[in-house]
Structures are given as C-alpha cells and as structure tokens.
C-alpha cells in the first residue's frame, strides 16, 4: 500500500504537518518496498481550494492511506468517496508515523 504523510519539511525527521491541504511536503511511503519519497505539495500555494487539489494529488499517485494532524470535512468526504483511509497523527516525526503504520496496519 502507498501512504501519503503530510510533512512540515523534507526528511524523515520532519514533523507530521497539522494541515493536510497546505503542508509543504508529502512523504510517500510504499509499504511493499519500504521506500519513502518526499515530494513538494503542488497545492500549497493555491489561494483557494488547496484541500481538494491536494486530494487530487495524493489520489493520482495511488495512495491508500493519508496521515496528517487534521482533515477538514470537505477533504474527509472527498477522501472517503475515493476509498482512501485517513489517520490523524500529531506530534510525531515522519519516521515515527511510518513505524506506527506497520503496527496499526500489518500486511
């Protein structure tokens, strides 16, 4: 499964971002290969509608689960409609968030 984690910065020690739509980076982690890739969030500069644009971005990359500090109601319904799961994560680094996946979602 592919996981998208909202990240405050580029790098495994970055903190998971509180805002899904406007986070600076997404960490895409592939549980089958164990690899993680950091990509700039193209939606972060949008003056409006950053949330839906960020959903488009993660969905177009085949994401099955997203992690962020919080999700707005609009974003939640879009992700729900696409069958993408959400998990709220606060105060953790990206590396810690990834570790928690293998515990919470063993394959």
């Amino acid at each position: 499964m592919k996981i998208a984690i909202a990240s405050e910065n580029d790098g495994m020690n970055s903190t998971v971002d509180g805002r899904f739509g406007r986070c600076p980076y997404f960490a895409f982690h592939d549980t089958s290969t164990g690899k993680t890739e950091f990509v700039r969030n193209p939606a972060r500069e949008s003056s409006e509608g950053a949330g839906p644009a960020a959903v488009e971005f993660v969905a177009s990359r085949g994401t099955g689960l997203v992690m962020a500090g919080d999700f707005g109601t609009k974003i939640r319904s879009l992700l729900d409609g696409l069958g993408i799961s959400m998990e709220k994560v606060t105060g953790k680094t990206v590396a810690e968030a990834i570790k928690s996946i293998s515990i919470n979602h063993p394959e």
Partner: protein
Amino acid sequence: MRAGMTIAIASGKGGTGKTFVSTNLFNAIVGEGDGAMLIDCDAEEPDDTLFFNVKRVCSREVTQKIPVIDAGKCTFCGRCREYCNYNAIFFLKEARRIKVMDDLCHGCGACSAACRSGAISEKEKPLGTVTDYLAGENLKIVEARMHPGNKSPVEVIREALKEADTAVTVLLDAPPGTSCPFVNTVSAADFTVLVTEPTPFGVADLKQAVKALKNIGKRCGAVVNKAGMGDGEVYAYLKAEGIPLLMSIPFDRNIAESCSKGELITDTDGRWKAEFRKLFETIRENL
C-alpha cells in the same frame, strides 16, 4: 461638493459600536430633513433595521451561476479543470471522477467555455437577498443579507451597493474585518468612519483597517467609542498618522440601555442628537 456623498462606517472587528454609530448618524441626518439612505452591508449579521420602524418594500434574490457536469457526456479530458483558477473542479482522470465543489466556485463560466463535449450546464445558486425598506417618507434602508452557509457575502453586498442613490447622502454600514467584504464596501464610499475602542486590541484592529484603506487610497477619520477606557495609545496613533478624530463617545449608561432596548439615543436624548449632527458636519469638513 455634490449633493450626495457616500460615507462608510467600519471597524476592524465587530462589537465596537459600528451599528450604534451608523444608525444614530442616519437618524440624526434624517431628523434634519435631509434626504438619506442607509445600506446595511454587514450581510452576515445585518441588524440596522431593528432600530427603526420600517416597512418592507421589496426583496430580491441574489444568485450565482454554478456549473453542473453531466458525467454521462463527460469524456474526462480535464480541460475544465485546467481552466478553473479556483480549484473548484475536483478531477481524477484515472478514477473517472469529476465534481464541482460548489463552495469554491466563483461562477466565472470558464469551465463551460472550455468544455467541447457539451457536458457542462449551469444552475442558479441562491446567495442571499437585497431588501428595500422605508423608514419614513423618502428614507430608504437597503439590507444585504447573505444566506447562512455561503462562503462570501461579497456578491450580495455588491448588489446592495448598486441601489445607492447618488442624489442623497448614503451611509454604508460596512462588514467587520478588513478582507474582501470590507474592501468592496469602503471602495464605494467617499469617506470612511472607523469606529474603534481605546484598548490595545482596538488599536491593533484600527491599524489593520487604516492599512487596508491606504492600500486602496481612501480617506478616513476615527470615532473613539467608550472613550476613557484604556490608555492614550489610540490618540497618539491617530495623530501620528494624521487621521482626524471625528468624535469621542464616553461610556454612558444611557447608551447601553437604549441599545439593549432597540432604541436610538438620538431619539431619546437631544444632546446626542446634536452630537451626531456635529459628527456629520465634521465629516463634511474633512471631505
């Protein structure tokens, strides 16, 4: 000077006495027999009519066009998504998903123009109402009222502003804050009266409002409400910025009481009527 001038009454935030100043200034002008019109542009919470004996004349609905996409005709080419500047079309080619996000849509029509498959039609979305009231002979109050749940009151405010009668003095009760609704309202005015309180929060909000007005090159003056509270920072700031202090309203139990009863102090207290009349003259001198 032309017969009619437009004066906006604004404040950096709500609850500083903006409605109090708008309604009493209107009442004071009206009382002298000058023609006047009050437009309540505080469309999220209009309340000016509550202070007058009004008769509702007519009301009209303000709507916006929202695209509707027929997924059966859509070829998922993505052109509409590309043309939309507001991220209002949620589009995923592979998953064959397309959806208009109504609350993000500005009704610009670019997507309809972009679609080559005739998949986009339009519906009218109700945004709010503009209602005309009469508060006496030839005394009009226009009220902009946004329907709850809508994203922005700007369209409704713009429609209400179109009713401004340039032959008479027009007062605009501006929406709180300094964002688009505020800017749209004060842009239509010759002069803006900023109502503030002499507290640190009041001064901070005042600075924001002054900055916004400067950006669009608009003149303003200040009314300090609950004068006597806080320290002298607000007066020093006004002086440094060269903004005229138009009026000081000390804290007065009578004012608080008349407000809570839905009365106008300019009706119940002749002294205040004279004060607001003087405010009107001071504004004129500053134009």
